């Protein structure tokens, strides 16, 4: 996604069986129109374009009134409340009706910006089972993703960013769903046979999907697909396609069906346990091969899905609370600042006392200026008197360790860095710092630990980290810069700590060219300095390296020679360096 190419003119090559991506998208939209409130909704990942427009056009088929909401919507708009401006001018109480008061098809724009608070409110509403939500996610990076509480509750996921124009046009042709709707009611009364549920539950388990919502949603989807196809019951193809739609984007384990016939120990396929399957099965699906369902999901998985999913999941963890970092001014929370004159609006709160104080001196004047016919009120407040509350709060801090994992001493150094990460996290309750760990070695740099506050996640990820190879210092710097900028875009305050003992010898393009590598590092250092992100360069060579001091100067960073650094000393230095 780095240099977003224009959509290709031909459809991207996709594994043919069982359903192509456009066909799957069409199926998803059809069953969403059939059973929107049952499925919870759709997570649509797309930039503005013909494909997204086509999907949006199809949303009109959902038999619920469409309401658009945005990530910064306030409680008043969602749940209803006093319309202060209208009440003031009318002199009587005016109320606004909340969007969530009636069932509707909610369309959440810029869904990747929705914070946990909004996600929690919408999730609660979706649990009522009367509405559905279409989350329009324009996230450019895998790390920018929908809040997990919502991703969990929306059954369907579509990524139409790679769709060709003719696919988009084909998507727009409406389907006639009248018959299917009637059929779905019958199908739902009959329900899904237990064998089918077993196949779905087994497939979900082998894909590493822990949530039990997923197989339940797949069951609903299978019924809707059967209704769509005019069947009297769910057949294998329905189950297969339902699984592909619901499970593909939730998978955490790549199932290896063809290579390994032996079932995973914790998830025996249903045909392994004939004793508890009733012999007089209502339909001819007593042994739906779970492999078939798995195969369908496999075909729907994009190649790099697991890496992307893992990154997205880990990154979502940090969209949470607040801590100590840069000060952010806002109207909603934090330490109060003096009130300011302003207008009512989105998420603003009136400071009553300051408003009254502003209005008080004018009372006699305003009473005198009353025209005949005006009703004298006790208090004459004009819009110009309104004072708005302001608050200041601190954003989260994130400390990004960028560790040199090259050469012979890599192992010990990484171990100390890991120790420092865990120590910092264990001590970070009061300040609530996030910590990230990047390691550079060989040809490039990898994110070992995306910014997190969770000790649990950290321990799992830090186990087993390799070292050795060249020193791609520039690649490390670039990755550190990327992570820092991403964190800053989320309203956090990043600090970078670079741990290395020498000069880079691998250039950005992966070639072992020392001069080019130096030049790349210096260039990145200048970019870094321009961003103003605070940084520490910790030199852990036995003798201080002048080149590193120069790099630190270029980055506008603090240079700290610290030979034989251990986890405890590192932690101390870093805490001092961050001004804790």
């Amino acid at each position, binding site marked *: 996604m780095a240099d977003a190419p224009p959509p290709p003119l031909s459809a991207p090559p996709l594994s043919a069986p069982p359903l192509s991506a456009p066909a799957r998208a069409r199926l998803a939209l059809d069953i969403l129109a059939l059973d929107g409130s049952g499925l919870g909704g759709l997570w649509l990942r797309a930039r503005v374009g013909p494909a997204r427009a086509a999907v949006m056009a199809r949303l009109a088929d959902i038999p619920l009134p469409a309401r658009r909401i945005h990530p910064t919507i306030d*409680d008043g708009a969602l749940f209803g409340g006093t319309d*202060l401006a209208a*009440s*003031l001018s009318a002199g*009587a109480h005016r109320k606004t009706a909340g969007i969530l008061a009636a069932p509707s098809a909610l369309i959440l724009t810029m869904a990747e910006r929705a914070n*946990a*608070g909004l996600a*929690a*409110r919408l*999730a*609660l509403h979706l649990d*009522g089972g009367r509405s559905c939500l279409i989350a329009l996610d324009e996230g450019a990076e895998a790390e920018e993703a929908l809040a*997990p*509480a919502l991703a*969990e509750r929306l059954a369907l996921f579509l990524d139409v960013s790679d769709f060709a124009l003719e696919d988009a046009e084909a998507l727009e042709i409406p389907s006639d769903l009248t018959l299917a709707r009637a059929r779905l009611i019958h199908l*739902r*009364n009959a329900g899904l046979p*237990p064998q089918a*549920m*077993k196949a*779905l*539950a087994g497939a979900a*388990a082998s894909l590493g999907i*822990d*949530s*039990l*919502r*997923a*197989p*339940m949603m797949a*069951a609903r989807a299978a019924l809707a697909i059967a209704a769509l196809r005019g069947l009297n019951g769910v057949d294998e193809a329905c189950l297969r396609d339902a699984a592909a739609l619901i499970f593909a984007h939730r998978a955490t384990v790549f199932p290896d069906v063809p290579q390994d016939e032996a079932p995973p120990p*914790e*998830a025996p396929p*249903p045909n392994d*346990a004939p004793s*508890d399957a009733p012999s007089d099965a209502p339909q001819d699906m007593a042994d739906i091969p779970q492999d078939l369902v798995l195969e369908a999901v496999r075909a729907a998985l994009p190649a790099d899905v697991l890496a992307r999913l893992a990154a997205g*999941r880990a990154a*979502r*963890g940090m969209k*949470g*609370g*607040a*801590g100590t970092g840069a000060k952010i001014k806002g109207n909603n*929370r934090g330490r109060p600042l003096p009130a300011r004159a302003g207008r009512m609006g989105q998420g603003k*709160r009136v400071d*009553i006392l300051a408003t009254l104080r502003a209005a008080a001196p004018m009372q006699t004047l305003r009473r005198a200026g009353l025209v005949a016919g005006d009703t004298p009120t006790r*208090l004459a*407040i004009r819009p110009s008197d309104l004072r708005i509350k302001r608050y200041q*709060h601190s954003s989260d801090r994130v400390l990004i360790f960028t560790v040199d994992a090259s050469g012979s001493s890599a192992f010990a150094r990484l171990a100390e860095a890991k120790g420092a990460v*865990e120590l910092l*996290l*264990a001590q970070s*309750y009061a300040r609530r710092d996030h910590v990230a760990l990047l390691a550079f070695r060989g040809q490039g740099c990898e994110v070992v630990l995306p910014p*997190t*506050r*969770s*000790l*649990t*996640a950290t*321990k799992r990820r830090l186990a087993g980290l390799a070292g050795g190879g060249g020193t791609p210092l520039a690649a490390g710097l670039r990755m550190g810069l990327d992570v820092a900028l991403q964190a800053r875009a989320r309203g956090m305050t990043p600090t970078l700590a670079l741990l290395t003992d020498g000069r880079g010898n691998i250039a950005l393009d992966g070639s072992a060219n020392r001069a080019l590598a130096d030049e790349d590092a210096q260039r990145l250092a200048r970019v870094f300095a321009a961003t103003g992100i605070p940084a520490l360069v910790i030199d852990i060579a036995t003798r201080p390296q002048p080149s590193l001091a120069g790099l630190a100067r270029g980055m506008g960073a603090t240079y700290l020679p610290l030979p034989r650094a251990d986890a405890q000393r590192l932690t101390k230095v870093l805490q001092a360096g961050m001004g804790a």
Partner: protein
Amino acid sequence: MTAPFPFSAIVGQEAMKRAMVLTAIDPAIGGVLVFGDRGTGKSTAVRALAALLPPIDVVEGCPVNSARMADVPDWVKTATGKTITRPTPVIDLPLGATEDRVVGALDIERALTRGEKAFEAGLLARANRGYLYIDEVNLLEDHLVDLLLDVAQSGENVVEREGLSIRHPARFVLVGSGNPEEGDLRPQLLDRFGLSVQVTSPRDVQTRVEVMLRRDGYERDTAAFMAEYGAQDALLRAAILTARKALPKLKTPPAVLHDCASLCIALGSDGLRGELTLLRAARAEAAFAGAKTVTRAHLKSVAEMSLSHRLRRDPLDEAGSGARVARILAETLP
């Protein structure tokens, strides 16, 4: 809203269900924290809990659910004096709720239209004598956590803002749920929860299928499903009421007190709250089991949920605190 999914129809998750039943028997245990993966029935269990709790008598029109007219705060003008029976309140505290909604604030409508200084009660008032449920409690904003810590400790909500000076009782059982992968909880808040349980998805397909079948049954024919499991819920509610009555008469031998103290010393848990909670939970467990005396067996069955979240965090401990409690339990109380 239709009837919530019945509590007794929840498959598995015995520790979570047991912890909720224990707090229903003795609210003084002080709440449950449920940590675990998504889609494991955490919110379902909390929403089902309401049906399990015995109804309470409240003064009609009182925003803080006072039991008697004498308890109604003096700022309340809407109380009618009639006593009505209501289900125990289970109030949702959404993430990102404003302070106004949580503690209550000046009633802007009345202030502006009638020039009166009136208090509009918040979520804490409505949760009085009931339950306060926070989903994703580990993502709660810091300033709300501070507020909750104070109120949960004192049982009283004091509002000093916008020219108001209001206090009202806010005694509630705190129920929180969350996913530890997304962030940890501050130890101070952890400590306010009496019991903590870890939930995981069932590992065998048979159980998972059973969960799906029950949910399907509930969605397809709610009335029939409720008829089937509502009876079980009623039995459980009766058992909770019986246990509540039996609780004061329960004998606690000194040996059990000794066990409590030695276990907490061996674990090095902070403060005395752990011991008190352990004892209360063991008493509730004994009362639920219909025993006349608390025994070491009762103590052992509730030790992990009472203590695992009160240990000092050890970054080098791989197994987690639950395993540590189990190990020390086996060593100290054979």
